[in-house]
């Protein structure tokens, strides 16, 4: 039994490494047949990973629901892939695979820590995926999306206003609202409207006046988040804002001023807010404040250290000793049981996902969608940076989840929708490509006809 788990941990590492390798070779692969072969083997890896994971958890916890959940995940995988292939043959299957792979790491780890959370995560992921299937159609058909800037701003600010209200009422403890058993964290959904707002504001008009308006709206977003003590999300928004201003204006002065202002603001925040100071002290030496704010980070570090390179094996560690292991400290829990090598491979998969997102921002012609893609990509990358960096004590902990992997309905749903938007852009871009070819064909035909006369 122990031996089986010891061997399985190396298998997990191998699977993840292999998956990451296939993902990267797939990006550059022009030959469709070879690419499909790689995608198929990725799919196989996903199935093996989930099966092996759930079998081990089942052997340890002996809960029959685990096997049901595993079967559910199988169905989810195959249906998702089939639907995307059927409905959107032009979508990026690599993107779909990466999404499913990261989700499956989350499914396994969350179910191992807390089965009911695992089931919830699965239901939300499956539901969001189905709902998100309409997103590419919307992106493709609704040209008006690029013009709704005021709507995005109002939606975003109202949602954040609700968050602030909740935060002030509960003293910063709750940032979500529960409706009919489903907890909605608005800041997750505002991530999307925020990017859409900035992109629509700046796509046509990157004049100084436009940038000022964008800055005011962005400052409102970030300000509300800081007041609601959701520092991680505030930081993500701020960075996204700086990036989009820079790309739209093509002036390096803006990011320089923006980063300067950001640094100044963080110094002010440090002196102004006790919870900011607390996080910085906990980061500097978590063991000094072990009994209070350093406890969580210390437990996370213990977990990562215990895992070492190869992990202690699934179900062999103590992720339960880390507070909120399934959310903010998911990465530490994975490090402990799957090991550092596995986590590096997983980060590479996250990076691959990011590359796919920004790649479309460079390929697509529509300026609005270029900005949308880059904005969403930046949000994703920076969120990964904040959470993984925070858990590994690289930067102060900001209390943010690892997209797709961590437990959290709103986070998973918003990331899946975000990726569906990116799929929409992939499809849109193929359309653009065909249009160009059509124009070219028409012209050459026209010339030929002209000569014949």
């Amino acid at each position: 039994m122990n031996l089986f788990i010891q061997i399985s941990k190396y298998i997990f590492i191998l699977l993840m490494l292999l998956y990451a390798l296939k993902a990267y070779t797939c990006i550059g692969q022009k030959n469709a047949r070879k690419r499909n072969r790689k995608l198929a083997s990725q799919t196989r890896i996903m199935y093996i990973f989930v099966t092996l994971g759930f079998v081990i958890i089942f052997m340890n916890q002996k809960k029959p629901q685990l096997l049901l959940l595993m079967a559910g995940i199988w169905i989810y995988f195959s249906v998702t892939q089939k639907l995307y292939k059927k409905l959107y043959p032009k979508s990026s299957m690599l993107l779909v695979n990466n999404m499913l792979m990261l989700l499956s790491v989350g499914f396994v780890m969350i179910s191992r820590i807390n089965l009911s959370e695992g089931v919830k995560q699965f239901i939300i992921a499956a539901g969001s995926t189905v709902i998100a299937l309409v997103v590419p159609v919307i992106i493709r058909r609704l040209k008006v999306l690029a013009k709704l800037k005021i709507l995005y701003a109002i939606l975003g600010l109202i949602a954040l206003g609700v968050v602030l209200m909740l935060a002030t009422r509960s003293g910063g403890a709750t940032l979500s609202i529960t409706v009919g058993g489903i907890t909605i964290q608005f800041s997750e959904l505002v991530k999307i409207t925020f990017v859409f707002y900035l992109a629509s504001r700046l796509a046509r008009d990157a004049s100084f006046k436009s940038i000022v308006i964008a800055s005011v709206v962005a400052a409102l977003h970030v300000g509300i988040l800081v007041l609601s003590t959701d520092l991680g999300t505030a930081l993500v928004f701020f960075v996204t804002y700086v990036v989009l201003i820079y790309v739209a204006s093509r002036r390096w002065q803006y990011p320089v001023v923006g980063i300067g202002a950001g640094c100044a603001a963080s110094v002010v925040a440090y002196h102004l807010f006790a919870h900011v100071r607390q996080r910085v002290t906990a980061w500097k030496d978590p063991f000094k404040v072990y009994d209070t704010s350093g406890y969580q980070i210390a437990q996370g570090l213990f977990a990562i250290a215990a895992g070492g390179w190869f992990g202690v094996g699934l179900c062999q560690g103590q992720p339960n000793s880390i507070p909120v292991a399934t959310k903010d400290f998911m990465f530490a829990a994975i490090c402990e049981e799957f090991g550092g090598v596995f986590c590096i491979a997983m980060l590479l998969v996250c990076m691959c996902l990011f590359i796919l997102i920004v790649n479309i921002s460079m390929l697509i012609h529509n300026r609005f969608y270029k900005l949308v893609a880059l904005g969403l990509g930046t949000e994703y990358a920076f969120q990964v940076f904040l959470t993984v960096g925070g858990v590994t004590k690289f930067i102060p902990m900001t209390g943010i989840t690892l997209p797709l992997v961590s437990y959290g309905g709103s986070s998973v749903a918003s990331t899946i929708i975000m990726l569906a938007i990116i799929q929409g852009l992939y499809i849109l871009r193929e359309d653009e490509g065909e249009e160009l070819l059509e124009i070219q064909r028409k012209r050459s035909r026209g010339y030929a006809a002209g000569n014949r006369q």
Partner: protein
Amino acid sequence: MRFSGRDPEDTQREIGSDVRNILRGKNVRNNQGRTRQENANPSSARRESEAEQRARLEAAREAEMRRRAEAERRAANDYNRRPSGRNGGRRRVKEDPEEKKRRLAAEKAAKKQRKKATRPYAIISYVCIGLFVLLIANLVYFNVYSKFSVLNSPYNKRQDTMAAYVVRGTIYSSDGNKLAYTSTASDGTDTRVYPYANEYAHVVGYNSNGKSGLESVCNYDLLSSHTNILDQIVNGFKGQKNPGDNVVSTLDSRLQDTAYNALGDYNGAVIVMEPKTGKILAMVSKPDFDPNTIASTWNELVADSGSSQLLNRATQGLYAPGSTFKIVTSLAYLRKHGTIDGFSWDCTGSIDVGDGTIHCYDGESHGQEDYTQAFANSCNTAFSQIGLDVGAQILTDTAESLLIGKSLPCDITASKSRWKLTDTDSDYILAQTAFGQGKTQVTPYQMLLITSAVANNGTLMTPRLIDHIENTAGQTVSSTKASAYKQLMTSDEASVLKSLMEAVVSEGTASALSGRSYSVAGKTGSAEYTKSDGTMGTNSWFVGFSNVDDPDIAVVAIAEDGGPGSQTAVPIASQIFEEYYSTH
């Protein structure tokens, strides 16, 4: 990855209006386009996979500019009447060199512009990829460097779970005696056994109710198994625990025994170290406790704040250094004047300095003396003058250069000594500090390191308690090597201090150690302190080393309330030297 991308602007500028017009009737036209293409070019009518077609579309788009130029030329030359875009495009047509030049220049400019257009996107992408790389690098760094201190953190309860798979390894003395081992009862319960009971209580430490000493420092090693992989697999099948690695310490059980007995009933500490290798051969602290029974006596031990039995006085006990500090003051004098020659002092037994009076120990008056005699006699009045001569600044610099007040290299927990002298302190405080009273407090370990540096020509070797880690089969897993930690003083300075310390043995307060088969150099100390009941006590100090020209061992001994150094500490050191040279 591909960051090739077409600029939106330059394409849109040229054909933007066309795109917008065409966008509206897209679906119909897409289908038509495909049919037309097949009709027009029957040779390629074979079914293409969706993806291949996509790749070709991509290629076509990339070469759009060039094709258009060629198509124009074809039209002009009436070269090719076939309405085929793709195959025709590959034909090489002779072109006017002028035109070619112009075309190439245009292409180059277009490419440049395209690159420029996507540059901000590329920059952001690379910055974000940089963030991912940083995360990975940090994770690697953590696993290579920072992991071990986290693993051995006293807060870390996770290590203990490894005990479910590994039998905690044994801690050995350098001469092969078991200092701590785990015995497994027939019902599978493990007990940690300390055969020497109290003798190694502080240095080896304990492993329940927290951890201390080597048990704490080597926790990770003791719970790691490097037994051969086949055995591990067999154990895995049998459901047996793997044997953990063993720690072989540098401690010499004979010297530890001697030091422990020599200190007798005194509270205090004794440490023995090889100045040339940094190996610590013995470390004793009293009062002590029995680590075998610590779980049951824990509450008493913690509650008894008066005697602090759990405190390792050798590395954590803070004492006034007394006259042993005259080594430091002498180094300061040497650094100011470059020599001790020319110093002379007439000791009358006491002297007024500022607002106080300084006495020599027991009010003895030493008369006319040079520097060496003042040092050998441990003359307080002379050293108060030396202190005033040197001044607070140089004295502070010298103390700091000898690591007083700094964190010390030590495998187990060691406290920093306390150095509180400032420029604003009175002359009286300065004078007191110079002969080791005042506000200065040092650990015995601190004085041992200074003495070892003097013995080893000024170089402090990194002190070591762990010699090597081995697996159950006795194969070395990792080992420590002698390495210089820091040059605390020049070898010239060290040799002057050596000669001063030799004089202490030949004609001064430690003359009990003279006339042996081996040479000894040292310094006694009689440090006065106020006891908890308000009366005055004297801590008995000795620091020194044997075989002066090629030092073998350095010893520090302190006996609390043991009277003058010559009375208690020197005999303790003497027993240790005797034991050492009975076999060396």
